[in-house]
């Protein structure tokens, strides 16, 4: 009997759904289900009695979804996708301050390294606590943060990620973002929750996603409302699923299975 796996979360589940054929071929012993909701609907959804249910008052749905609720009971492993751990707020904390103990001075307000570290920790700890409150301590669960924005998002234009671009120019940015990730792991561990950080092979530099994981026709030459630097393609879904399978299931894909082509229906 095949092991049942659930991938659940925000619109970032779309990357996994579009990789579903590759995942099915690469992991024939796994029976993977996909359940995604738009971010706000996901945030308002209720998890009760082992069932995750979208609120009736928010009918919005991802294009590929045909369900409004899912029972967690049948699944042996559950990958939660899309928690952001207040990434933008954390980046802004770093961007809008000069850290007293760092040599760089830009004329911004000062913050001590002790305060910065504690503010980041407090912010992340609150997110971890919320996840724990919502889903409880479930050994089947693994939480994957939302992907970092694409590297191209630092260029001016539609979808420009100001904080990310600004942080790239700060001398202490990489060091403090590394601490941020360390804090995520520590606070999730403290909450008794399993976390899988974005795999290195999907990144461009430390805290951006490599541009080749972009979905088709979403770059800055597209109409502004189609530009998207945050949602990734099927190849990303495949790569991350492989990392999840290796880490949580001890499995690697069948040989000969390569990165999937872009599939059409995404979130």
């Amino acid at each position, binding site marked *: 009997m095949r092991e049942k796996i659930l991938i659940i979360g925000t619109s970032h589940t779309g990357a996994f759904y579009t990789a579903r054929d590759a995942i099915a071929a690469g992991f024939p012993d796994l029976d993977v289900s996909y359940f995604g909701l738009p971010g706000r609907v996901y945030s308002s959804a209720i998890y009760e009695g082992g069932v995750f249910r979208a609120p009736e008052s928010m009918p919005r749905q991802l294009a590929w979804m045909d369900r409004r609720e899912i029972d967690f009971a049948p699944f042996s492993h559950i990958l939660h996708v899309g928690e952001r751990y*207040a990434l933008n707020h954390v980046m802004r904390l770093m961007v809008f301050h000069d850290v007293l103990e760092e040599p760089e001075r830009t004329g911004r*307000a*000062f*913050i*001590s390294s*002790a*305060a910065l570290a504690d*503010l980041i920790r*407090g*912010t992340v700890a609150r997110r971890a606590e919320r996840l724990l409150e919502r889903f409880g301590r479930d050994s089947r669960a693994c939480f994957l943060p939302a992907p970092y924005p694409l590297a191209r998002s630092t260029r001016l234009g539609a979808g420009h990620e100001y904080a990310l671009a600004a942080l790239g120019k700060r001398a202490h940015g990489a060091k403090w973002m590394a601490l941020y990730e360390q804090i995520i792991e520590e606070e999730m561990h403290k909450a008794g929750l399993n976390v899988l950080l974005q795999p290195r092979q999907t990144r461009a530099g430390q805290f951006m996603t490599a541009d080749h994981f972009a979905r088709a026709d979403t770059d800055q030459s597209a109409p502004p409302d189609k530009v998207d630097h945050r949602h990734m393609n099927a190849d990303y879904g495949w790569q991350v699923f492989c990392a999840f399978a290796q880490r949580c299931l001890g499995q690697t894909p069948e040989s000969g299975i390569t990165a999937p082509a872009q599939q059409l229906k995404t979130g």
Partner: protein
Amino acid sequence: MGSPYDTLSASALWRSGVAEVDPLAIDGVYLPKFPVTPDTKIMTAGSCFAQHVHRALAARNWAVIDVETPQGPIPRAVLNRYGYGLYSARYGNIYTARQMLQLLREALGEIRPAEPIWTRDGRYFDAQRPNAEPLGLESAEHVMEARSVHLRRVLRAVKRAEVFVFTLGLTEVWRHKESGTVYPTAPGTLAGHFDPEVYGFHNFTLPEVRKDLEALRTRLKALRPDLKMLLTVSPVPLTATATDKHVLVSTSYSKAVLRGAAGEMAAKYEDVDYFPSFELITNPAAGGRFYKNNLRSVTEEGVTAAMRMFFQAHAPDASATDGPTQDRFEDDADEADLICEEALIEAARS
């Protein structure tokens, strides 16, 4: 021919105005001289009780000024630990009128406080706000760099403010003997070293407090000519007195001086008012119910009652409900866990 007391209103008589009235529903205690609306830009400062005022205003999304607190979903308790989100700028508790005046004079470049940096365990602390960095900083230069930016922010807050709410807390103070520089804590309490040759105790008199409030008003209005002041007196008794008197006697002296000074300022100037939270909390009709078991800290009920009086006077429609609205920090920490250096004296002795 009757007595002049025959025609007085019920609120003028103790029995009908206080003794027979629910202490949570006394009318006419606070009759504002000028309006304060949710859009009025309010600057807050003062002793630790003033944190309640700042928090209550922020919780109702009134336009309370905050020029230093980082934005974002950061837990209030963590922000407060570093002096953020307590007042309009990150100056910590300001217990005396002299300390507030001194801060403003320093920000304006008129003076430089003596002994501005204290040390503890090899770390460096801003003597004027030793609690802002609980673990101190790694160098004296860092303290001074941070202070220079802080002082600019203090001026920015004043220039933005339409109403300055200031809670007077103490008359007792430790100061630098030669220069007269005052400090929010005694040297050696949180940091620094107490040298009786350098530092001395002083208990401000009513004329001194009055003079300081006058000088404070002058400087505030030089920065913001249309600024109004709303003075309050903290109902929190002294944790300890450094006089040779009983702490009960010293508390009465301190509060009487501060109340007198605030009253005189309010009587003299149209743009200065007095908000009687002290009277509401200490009202004998309350039978001490607005104090916690230590008979010192004010209960949440007491704070709510005081702030209800404020909101009912200034925005009666908005004060229909007593409970605070969602506050910007999405606070879920201990609601009454104020940062109060004075209380640390007690903790240090326990």
